[in-house]
């Protein structure tokens, strides 16, 4: 049998999806089902003077309307789940509907329930809300000023938290031969899965069980948080994440909306469905990023880096989201040195409330921002000292013999060999030749540039002890059960909750290889809190490293038990049993065999089991890793800038990633491509725009530029494999590498192209207008 792990297998998930047989939230139709719509604030900041629902209640099909006041005392605030310690964190209660004051465009004001998709919207627009508008706090830097409007009256200067990590001795900065100081803005971006969020609630008044289908990357976290909000026992609340049309972090958060749907379904005793409209995705779903990074990088003229000092001013929006506070602190602040051996680092983060939609984890969560600032600063430093940016990188890389390596912020990088993917990338791209060509083209007035991004990121969320220490309100271990049926076919239950990553295939490969059974004999169950006892979901590139490891360990346990049964039947000592390619045999006794399927039957029939052994063949693992995993790699971007129009064309894109063991190269490449598209989207096109009144100017795909196919060249990908020592699969994490690496690679390439103009930075996204303006202004100097 050929190796299954590492094989380029097409996905088990696909037949249903390509034939239109997926089962997404809006496909759910229940008898007597009602539709819900949420009336949202058109103002960034206003007092609610009155809400008149009289007309709306008379509209055809209306069953109920709830306002914030109606729900007071009946449904609790939705809490943040990452209460980072030691940062004077001030959480403001976010009630599912605003009670007397709205704090962002999109803040929920009333919940309407009616018969039918259209009727509910007809009724919603008949609600008359009288507002008294207040001055809004919009940008984070302005909102921290003493005279800024307060988002929450009792929170001074709108500072939600102030976090610090790392110390740099003053003389290190003072004595530095070179100091680069640059401010970068990582603009706010929308996760934008093509399937928006959704929730469907169904309550059984007889049993008291509430079932909530919702678009969730982590249904058990939804269950845990919502059981508190709705005051219902976890045993009575079943959360199901059906097929999901993407997440990208936007479906991690527990939102007021899901709580409202659950509440209404229970209150009315009828099923209730809410499907987020795209404009709601832009006004009411958590965004990513929105961080101002003031960076100082210190070192010597010979390229030795000595310290990095970063201040991150993070726009958290009007409330603290589920993972929000951890993103710009732990995820960002501990990774500011990137893949470099910089002896000293410090990071200070201000989380600032503003009258905007909350921000939360978005693909990469903190690591793309950390990578961006260090990779950009490295390029600026190289330019300052006249060194090749690649040489500066190599000079400061953590060397492979130094792993496990503790970075300046105290994180222990598990394993690495940063030269390896770089070397591979340079095999794919003749750098020296490029520099020659670039010189020639520059003479002809053409602006072509190259950008490198050599990155490392923290993935594989575990270990739970660490999660506790950093204030995460949950564990981050993972759970898997491997259940062998009497026929020898297998169901795997995982606490991770995929939404496009292909876990049924990759986890299936792990099990198929170990058990020596066909992929078709293995099914994966996920996303249902009733089927799976506990789990922590899919985000932060944790599924394979943590969830896949749990599957692997549970499978080993199945084999261990099966061996005992086989040994008993074959009348041989267990230690003489060999299990290979699905066959149990006895060492030195050819012909004494049992197939896996035969043992599955024996285990389940239990007619003849070894003394003391319980029937059935099933095992569970609750794997809590000892450390995070740290994937790394090198990305290279080549761009050409049209100096007449400011238009940027990506000429080549090379990605070499090292994510430890690659279980399935096909799905791995897919993850890399998608991640790169998203990271390039951040660099070049995507960006949320609020005006000074806090009005959202980018509320549809007509105003918010999503990456399109024709924007990209063919992406050239390759992998190197440096196994992680922290899990038996040796796997790291791949979902976010592309997003983390690509944004700085593109920015560095564009800045390299613009080098003749002496331009140091342009704020993302690099729209042609901004680039053209930067060129024009520099020419005017």
């Amino acid at each position: 049998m050929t190796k299954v792990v590492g094989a380029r297998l097409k996905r088990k998930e696909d037949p249903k999806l390509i034939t239109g047989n997926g089962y997404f939230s809006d496909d759910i139709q229940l008898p007597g089902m009602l539709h819900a719509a949420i009336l949202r604030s058109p103002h960034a900041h206003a007092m609610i003077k009155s809400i008149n629902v009289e007309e709306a209640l008379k509209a055809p099909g209306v069953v109920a309307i709830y306002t914030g006041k109606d729900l007071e005392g009946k449904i609790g605030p939705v809490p943040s789940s990452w209460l980072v310690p030691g940062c004077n964190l001030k959480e403001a209660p976010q009630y599912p509907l605003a009670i007397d004051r709205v704090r962002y465009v999109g803040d929920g004001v009333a919940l309407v329930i009616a018969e039918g998709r259209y009727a509910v919207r007809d009724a919603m627009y008949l609600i008359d809300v009288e507002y008294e508008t207040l001055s809004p706090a919009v940008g984070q830097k302005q909102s921290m000023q003493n005279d800024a409007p307060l988002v929450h009256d009792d929170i001074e200067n709108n500072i939600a938290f102030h976090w610090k990590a790392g110390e740099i001795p003053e003389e290190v900065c003072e004595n530095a031969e070179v100091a680069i100081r640059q401010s970068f803005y990582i603009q706010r971006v929308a996760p934008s899965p093509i399937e928006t969020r959704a929730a469907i609630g169904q309550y059984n008044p007889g049993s008291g069980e509430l079932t909530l289908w919702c678009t969730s990357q982590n249904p058990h976290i939804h269950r845990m948080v919502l059981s508190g909000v709705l005051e219902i026992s976890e045993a009575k609340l079943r959360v199901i994440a059906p097929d999901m049309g993407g997440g990208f972090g936007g479906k991690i958060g527990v939102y007021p909306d899901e709580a409202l749907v659950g509440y209404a379904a229970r209150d009315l005793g009828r099923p209730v469905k809410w499907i987020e409209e795209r404009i709601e995705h832009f006004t009411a779903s958590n965004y990513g990023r929105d961080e101002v990074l003031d960076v100082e990088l210190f070192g010597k003229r010979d390229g030795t880096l000595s310290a990095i000092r970063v201040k991150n001013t993070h726009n958290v929006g009007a409330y603290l989201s589920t993972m929000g506070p951890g993103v710009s602190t732990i995820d960002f602040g501990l990774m500011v040195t990137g893949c470099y051996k910089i002896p000293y680092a410090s990071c200070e983060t201000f989380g600032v409330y503003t009258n905007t939609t909350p921000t939360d984890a978005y693909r990469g969560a903190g690591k793309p921002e950390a990578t961006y600032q260090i990779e950009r600063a490295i390029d600026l430093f190289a330019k300052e000292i006249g060194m090749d940016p690649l040489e500066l990188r190599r000079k400061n890389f953590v060397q492979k013999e130094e792993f496990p390596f503790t970075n300046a912020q105290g994180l222990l990088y598990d394993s690495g060999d940063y030269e390896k993917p770089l070397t591979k990338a340079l095999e794919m791209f003749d750098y020296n030749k490029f520099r020659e060509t670039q010189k020639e083209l520059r003479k002809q007035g053409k602006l072509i540039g190259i950008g490198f991004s050599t990155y490392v990121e923290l993935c594989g969320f575990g270990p739970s002890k660490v999660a506790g220490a950093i204030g995460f309100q949950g564990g981050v271990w993972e759970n898997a059960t491997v259940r062998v049926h009497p026929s020898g076919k297998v169901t795997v239950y995982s606490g991770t909750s995929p939404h496009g990553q292909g876990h049924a295939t990759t986890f299936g490969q792990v099990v198929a290889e170990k058990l020596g059974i066909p992929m078709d004999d293995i099914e994966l169950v996920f996303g249902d809190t009733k089927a799976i006892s506990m789990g922590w979901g899919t985000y932060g590139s944790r599924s394979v490293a943590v969830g896949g490891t749990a599957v692997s360990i549970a499978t080993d346990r199945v084999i261990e038990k099966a061996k005992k049964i086989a040994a008993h039947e074959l009348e041989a000592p267990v230690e003489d049993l060999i299990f290979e390619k699905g066959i149990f045999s006895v060492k030195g006794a050819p012909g004494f065999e049992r197939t896996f399927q035969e043992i599955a039957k024996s285990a389940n029939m239990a007619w003849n089991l070894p003394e003391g052994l319980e029937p059935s063949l099933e095992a569970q693992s609750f794997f809590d890793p000892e450390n995070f995993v740290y994937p790394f790699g090198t990305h290279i971007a080549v761009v050409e800038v049209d100096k007449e129009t400011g238009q940027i064309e990506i000429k080549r894109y090379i990605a070499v990633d090292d994510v430890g063991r690659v279980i399935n190269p096909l799905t791995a490449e897919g993850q890399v491509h998608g991640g790169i598209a998203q990271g390039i989207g951040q660099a070049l096109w995507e960006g949320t725009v609020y005006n000074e009144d806090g009005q959202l100017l980018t509320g549809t795909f007509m105003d918010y530029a999503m990456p399109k196919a024709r924007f990209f060249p063919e992406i050239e990908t390759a992998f190197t494999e440096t196994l992680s020592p922290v899990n038996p699969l040796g796997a790291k994490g791949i979902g976010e590498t592309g997003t983390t690496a690509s944004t700085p690679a593109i920015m560095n390439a564009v800045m390299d192209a613009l080098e003749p103009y002496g331009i140091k930075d342009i704020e993302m996204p690099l729209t042609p207008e901004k680039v053209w303006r930067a060129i024009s202004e520099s020419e005017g100097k």
Partner: protein
Amino acid sequence: MAIENVNVKVKINGKERCAKVEPRTLLAHYIRDDLGLTGTHIGCDTSQCGACSVMVDGEVVKSCTVLAVQADGSEITTVEGLGDVNNLHPIQQGFWEKHGLQCGYCTPGVMMAMVGLLKQNPNPSDEEIREGLEGVICRCTGYQFIVEAVKHAAQIMRETEVQLVGEER
């Protein structure tokens, strides 16, 4: 004043179907909610994403911005009409073989749009496929494997002379 519901009759995936709907019902909702064919998805409400693309009388149409009444009497093909798991359409084969989908939500619409492209151009270049994808948004794949999928489908179709949908089979 309430407007009377109207009967909308179509031939969808080869079968005559009808349902009484409000005149303002979007074709996408008619197909999904009234005819129960949920493979066609809605993603953006403004006709940008193309997840709702279907074929109406041989033309690719974004069904979220067309009224069901406008489609009365027409022939519609949705993803369910392309092929089933035992008899996949070449475009479905292409998407499966080449990993042209991840979450699979935009996929039915993207496949319909690409069927439309291949009808016009049975042998498109990479660039032509990327241009042909202009009307759709996929957030997962970065498009590269979609391009591969379409090329693969085009090849199968050329080799086997498979008829496109919307034509006599």
